[in-house]
């Protein structure tokens, strides 16, 4: 029983980790309607920035979020402005996918060029210490990630519901043409959304950096899992992505223990496929933004 509880706890913590990556992705995927294959590389870039800042200035990696999140915002906004936007009107939506694949390849290899294939270690500054909940052990760093993910989800929800800009983002996602008629500059909204999505993962990367060694390929694993969480939670739904991530974290941890660690990926992707095929609006799906799925 203790082991089971520990696995559940591990799964939830892992879910928090996935969530903080997936939340930004669901914004970009759900609102700009672009599959951002470079999202994992955004995480990687953020982690390297955190690493450089926290070792260079000798500060706690969490503090670097103050610089990393804005930096990633700029990266995301530039991606939308220079790479995605020129392709928005392209007849073939495939080209956007290839554009982000190109960006992903370029960023990953740029990191390889600058940092080499070796891992970079962001000093842990105490986030690897443990908290005991009864018999269950949890890392403080992981708790912070989960807490940050919850805060991020709540914060984004409030932003989307209560602010003028947030409403404009939702309006643009729900009906782009009508949004333009309201005086909303849709191009600006897309740039902003892409930026916010990237900034979310920037925040995440500062929290993840002290927990995991950084390498140029760290993003590749996260990005596919994050897509799973996003689809599971219902495209574009921020709380959906969060709960989707928790579910996937649990599935990952449980299948790793009960089925075998070599098959856990297969389990996760099989669940993903079942959701895609049987309920493409996601487990927690809203009705919005399913323009890519025909009835």
């Amino acid at each position, binding site marked *: 029983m203790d082991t089971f509880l520990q696995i559940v706890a591990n799964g939830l913590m892992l879910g928090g980790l996935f969530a903080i990556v997936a939340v930004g992705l669901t914004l970009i995927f759900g609102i700009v309607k672009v599959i951002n294959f470079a999202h994992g590389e955004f995480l990687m870039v953020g982690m390297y920035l955190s690493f450089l800042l926290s070792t260079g200035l000798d500060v706690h990696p969490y503090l670097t979020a103050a610089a990393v999140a804005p930096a990633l915002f700029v990266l995301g906004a530039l991606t939308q402005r220079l790479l995605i936007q020129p392709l928005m009107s392209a007849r073939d939506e*495939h080209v956007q996918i290839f554009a982000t694949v190109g960006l992903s390849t370029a960023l990953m*290899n740029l990191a390889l060029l600058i940092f080499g294939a070796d891992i970079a270690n962001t000093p842990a500054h105490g986030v690897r210490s443990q908290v005991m909940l009864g018999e269950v052990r949890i890392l403080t760093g992981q708790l912070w990630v989960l807490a940050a993910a919850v805060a991020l989800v709540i914060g984004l929800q409030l932003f989307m519901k209560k602010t003028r800009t947030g409403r404009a983002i939702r309006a643009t996602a729900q009906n782009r043409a009508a949004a333009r008629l309201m005086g909303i500059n849709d191009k600006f909204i897309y740039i902003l959304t892409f930026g916010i999505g990237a900034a979310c993962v920037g925040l995440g990367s500062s929290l993840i950096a002290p927990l995991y060694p950084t390498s140029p390929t760290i993003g590749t694993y996260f990005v596919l899992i994050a897509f799973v969480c996003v689809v599971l939670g219902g495209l574009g739904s921020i709380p959906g992505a969060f709960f989707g991530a928790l579910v996937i974290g649990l599935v990952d941890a449980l299948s790793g223990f009960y089925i075998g660690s070599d098959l856990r990926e297969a389990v996760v992707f099989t669940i993903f496929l079942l959701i*895609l095929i049987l309920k*493409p609006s996601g487990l927690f799906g809203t009705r919005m933004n399913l323009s890519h799925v025909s009835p």
Partner: protein
Amino acid sequence: MTRASDTPMTAHRLGLIAVAVLLAGLVAVPVAVGDQFVYHIFITICIFAALSTAWNIVGGYAGQLSLGHAIFYGIGGYAGVILVNLGISPWIGMFAGAAVAVVAAIVVSWPCFRLHGPFFALATIAFLEVFRVLALHFRELTGGATGLMIPLKIGWEWMVFRERLPALLIAFGMLLVCLAVAWAIRSHRLGFYLVATRERESAAKAAGVGTVKVRLMAVAVSAALSAMVGTFHAMYLTFIEPESMFSLQFSIQIAMFALIGGIGTVWGPLLGAMLLVPITEFARGALGSEAIGLHGFVYGVVLMLVVLFLPNGIMGLVHRFTAAPGKTVGEQAAPVAAAPRSAEPREAGREVMRVEGLQKHFGGLHVTNDVGFTLREGEILGVIGPNGAGKTTVFNMLSGFLKPDEGKVSVLSPSGEWQQPVTPGDFASIGVGRTFQIVQPFAAMTVEENIMVGAFHRHPHVGDAREAARETAHRMGLGPYLNAEASSLTIGGLKRLEVARVMAMEPRILLLDEVMAGINQTDVRRAVDLMLSIRDTGVSIIAIEHVMQAVMSLSDRVIVINSGQIIAQGDPHDVVRDAHVIEAYLGKDFTHA
């Protein structure tokens, strides 16, 4: 006219000569240079071009962006190697691999057809990951991570050679096969159906295309070809492992060659591979040893630039330079005047369609309430009613696009039995053709090709279908625009194209949804004549119309629908005098006007 058709012909012939020269070069250059490394590069070009061409059948023609095509390549590779180790020649193994790949392709694709664009791409990636993990897990069969090797048995029988020429010839042969299949599909009915399905699935269904069936055929063919190339490549590599056989990177690369060459074109993937493989090889040689990652960085940047500045690929560029100067399609000629209406009063024909008690709800909305009527042979039935009254919903139920909650639609088959078709395909094959209120041209096809999609319904051969399409086009006044892209027509032209496509199906019952809307008065009169002449050939017509003038002069009978219910039906002149109709349709104040 002659010049306009001359130029593309010459360009076409020049293009074919260019392709032939390029293909010959694939064999001639390595033979002339005689260098093993050059052989290797050209074999690699052939393999990638073949895989990319096969991918293009699904990714290009059918428009389903598969990023998991390595599944089929990997299956072919594994089948070949496993069988070779059992002493079976890869020449047999490749067909075994192809068979397994076809099964896998159908299993993978069937559930994914509801998914489009990015979702389909994600699903194929997920399938690929599952395959890779399973290949790692089932070691007894696949050798797990350590992979499988083939014994170095030399000879044609084993596809392993000491000299390079035979391997090149096999790779080249496979490329030719892939190109031939791709070309054959594109220029036959299946290709038209695939492109039509990609462009407008609903219009394709209405034209009697079994959209799921044609897509499955495309996937199956593509998978079989990929698997066969995979078998050969495994023999060429002599060693396979899950990491390289079921690789996402590899899948993306295959798709990318097609993208850069020109997605959906026959020759694009070949051009993409011929350009990119050598560049990649030399770039790797030049940059790879300079600094770790430099080569990959440049590769990624180049990919982004190509996508940004060459979104239609090399073929797009080629077309821009070879295409005949763009014709702007201005005013289209009106349909040729139909034969004068026969003065003889026609006898009311037998019933051909019975509609009984149709009910349809959308959520809480009762959009169709107990709609029932009959249609006779050679009759024109006008359907009027305010916007949003539910006319189009009724049409959708009469053509299989919506399933009624209650009630039934029966159609008299040509052999004289009453049948109840269910799917759009059923309706099409029993002879019910329909147009769409919002025109649904296959934008990437020419006018002629658009009409051919309909004509294939009766004429499976390209030549016959083309003949029938031309004839229909001339009848509809679209003759001069046969080679124009459908997207260049005006609204009026598109409306006519919509009708022409249905007419080419030679339906017995024609459902026309506001075909008069947006065409000018003279044309309305001609269109009325045209419809009457169609009717006089024994075709029954149900027409939703707003142009009252047309409705009055056209219809033998009129049905008025309001709020999902039939509120009046009968002789057109009686119906417009009906008080309910005036109130509902024209507005209460109308009477005082």
